[in-house]
């Protein structure tokens, strides 16, 4: 080959690089990993990878299970709504009858039930007109009619009947929140349900005669209704409750030790699962892979191996590159939401699992050669880092939103072999997917 032997550049490298065996010092850590290879043990890297796979699989299964659970629940809720109109048509006729016979109008409190005779005689003649007055009082019609009806007929109820009644009533009560607009015929369905109910009760009650008991029956049932009545107001909150979002985020971040003066840029990407407990509060967790390069001085680096050595023997500069699996657990509070925009602040703790740490140590005066150290998967800092973040979320459609999240990560414990105070800050950008967007109104 022409020029092969005479090429000066080639010769420079060939001469300079050969015969260098003696320059290279033996390192125990290389033998340690060699022994692992010889023992045919899976390397730590593989173990970590396996852990990641398993945890990802578990997370996926959990996600699926939880998702299905809420999906089914939503279906049930829809079915309940679908039943309502049926009742309405069934009870159309009885309702009108009821208005003649029965009074829905108000008895203001249960104390009045003690004089059922007079009260009800007066009220018996009342229909539509009075009903409006009743609704103006803001008392739920179902309750009223129920309290009233027993005394009206002066009919005591035998112990079994009140029991039935309460069950029926409370079941219906779950839907009765809105007072009726027009009682005469086209009543909002809850009242109709209540009305038919009362009719049945009346019919049942009419058959029995036992003057001693009406009051006790009335007063017994009242408290039960009261407690059950609280339920409907809770239910919608529960239904809107745990929503799930899955976000994919990536961020450039600045890493520095102690202060942000000497910083280096790293990258960071991962997934984040948000569990929305209420409209304002949410928990977020996930996993992200981060590459964190940083520079530190020898004094900021406190390896255990360095203890007891004189400062002259220790390197002056450390430049490091750490690959970290970051598992955050944050609580977020949404303080502003208008239209498509949402703002939230959050805080929590992160666990750093150090996958690989590379260090390069060098001396200021060049008296000693610089050297490198690599550590694989030796350090895990469970909940060792404080997270602070702010999130701006802009909705694209019902399923997707974009997220911009400035954050800061401040370690509570020392990070890595050198137990350094490795701080990171950056702005994560990502897309969030709303897993169950069908919120009941």
């Amino acid at each position, binding site marked *: 080959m022409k020029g092969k032997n005479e090429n000066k550049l080639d010769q420079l490298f060939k001469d300079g690089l050969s015969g260098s065996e003696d320059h290279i010092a033996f390192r125990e850590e*290389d033998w340690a990993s060699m022994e692992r*290879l010889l023992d045919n043990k899976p390397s730590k890297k593989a173990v970590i990878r396996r852990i990641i796979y398993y945890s990802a699989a578990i997370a996926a299964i959990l996600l699926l299970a939880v998702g299905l659970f809420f999906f089914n629940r939503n279906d049930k809720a829809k079915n309940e709504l679908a039943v309502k109109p049926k009742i309405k048509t069934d009870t159309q006729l009885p309702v009108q009858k009821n208005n003649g016979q029965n009074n829905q109008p108000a008895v203001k409190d249960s104390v009045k039930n003690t004089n059922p005779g007079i009260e009800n005689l007066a009220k018996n003649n009342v229909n539509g007109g009075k009903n409006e007055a009743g609704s103006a009082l803001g008392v739920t019609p179902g309750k009223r009619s129920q309290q009233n009806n027993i005394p009206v007929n002066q009919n005591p109820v035998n112990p079994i009947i009140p029991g039935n009644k309460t069950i029926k009533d409370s079941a219906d009560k779950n839907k009765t929140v809105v007072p009726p607009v027009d009682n005469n015929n086209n009543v909002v369905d809850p009242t109709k349900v209540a009305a038919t109910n009362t009719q049945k009760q009346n019919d049942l009650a009419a058959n029995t005669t036992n003057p001693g008991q009406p009051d006790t029956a009335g007063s017994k049932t009242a408290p039960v209704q009261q407690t059950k009545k609280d339920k409907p107001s809770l239910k919608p909150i529960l239904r809107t409750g745990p929503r799930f979002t899955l976000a994919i985020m990536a961020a450039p971040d600045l890493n520095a030790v102690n202060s942000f003066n000497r910083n280096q840029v790293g990258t960071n990407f991962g997934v984040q699962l948000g569990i929305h407990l209420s409209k304002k509060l949410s928990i977020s967790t996930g996993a992200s892979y981060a590459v964190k390069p940083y520079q530190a001085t020898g004094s900021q680096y406190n390896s255990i191996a360095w203890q007891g050595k004189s400062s002259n023997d220790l390197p002056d500069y450390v430049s490091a590159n750490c690959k970290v699996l970051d598992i955050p657990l944050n609580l977020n509070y949404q303080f502003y939401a208008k239209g498509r925009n949402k703002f939230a602040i959050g805080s929590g703790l992160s666990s750093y699992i150090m996958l690989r740490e590379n260090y390069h140590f060098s001396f200021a005066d060049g008296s000693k*050669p610089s050297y490198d150290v690599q550590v694989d998967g030796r350090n895990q800092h469970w909940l060792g880092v404080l997270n602070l973040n702010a999130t701006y979320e802009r909705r694209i459609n019902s399923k997707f939103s974009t997220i911009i999240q400035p954050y800061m990560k401040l370690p509570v414990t020392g990070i890595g072999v050198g137990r350094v105070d490795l701080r990171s800050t950056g702005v994560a950008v990502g897309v969030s997917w709303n897993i169950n967007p069908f919120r009941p109104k």
Partner: protein
Amino acid sequence: MGEAELQQLIAGCLQQSRKDQKMLYKAFYGFAMSICLRYAGNRYEAAEIMNQGFLKVFTNLHKYDTGRPFIAWVGRIMMNTSVDYYRSNLKLSLNDDLDAAEDIGHNELPDQKLNYDDLLGMIQQLPNAYRTVFNLFAIEGFSHEEIATQLGISTGTSKSNLFKAREKLKTMVLNSGRLPDNGSEDIRHKIIAIGAMSVGLSHLIELIMR
């Protein structure tokens, strides 16, 4: 290390003696590492390659032909392991004027002494494909045809990669006299870029809020 001593070690390794394995590993550590460092991008990859190489040495020790020098056999394994390690990204090539490769580095180089660390640093900065071809051609002394067969690339790719490798190395050698002050500059640039991005973002948010 004497020949007899070496044979004893090899015999011990064949009986899976961990102590002898370590002795052999230690004895050839420097030699093996010096090869792997040339082929690898950094110290960590070099150690990984070397260990894979030693694993081949230990598991194939019974195949070793005692009539030949052991060190050459180890060196060959290290080289092959290095090449295998980067095989997946060796295809990188440029279809430039190939003959120009021969002219690079003939006359322009200053007569300066560069130490081992400097030269190693330069060679490690090369892309894997360039570095592998440069190693095989310039240091091991293979021809382009041999390299092409070994790497599974065309001779054209081999020539092209050598050309690019020499070009890059020449620039590095010529610049080696200057102080590298662009490191801090680089960080400053990054900070400015991130700052500008966040200012831009906040403006964007403000705009959206309106």
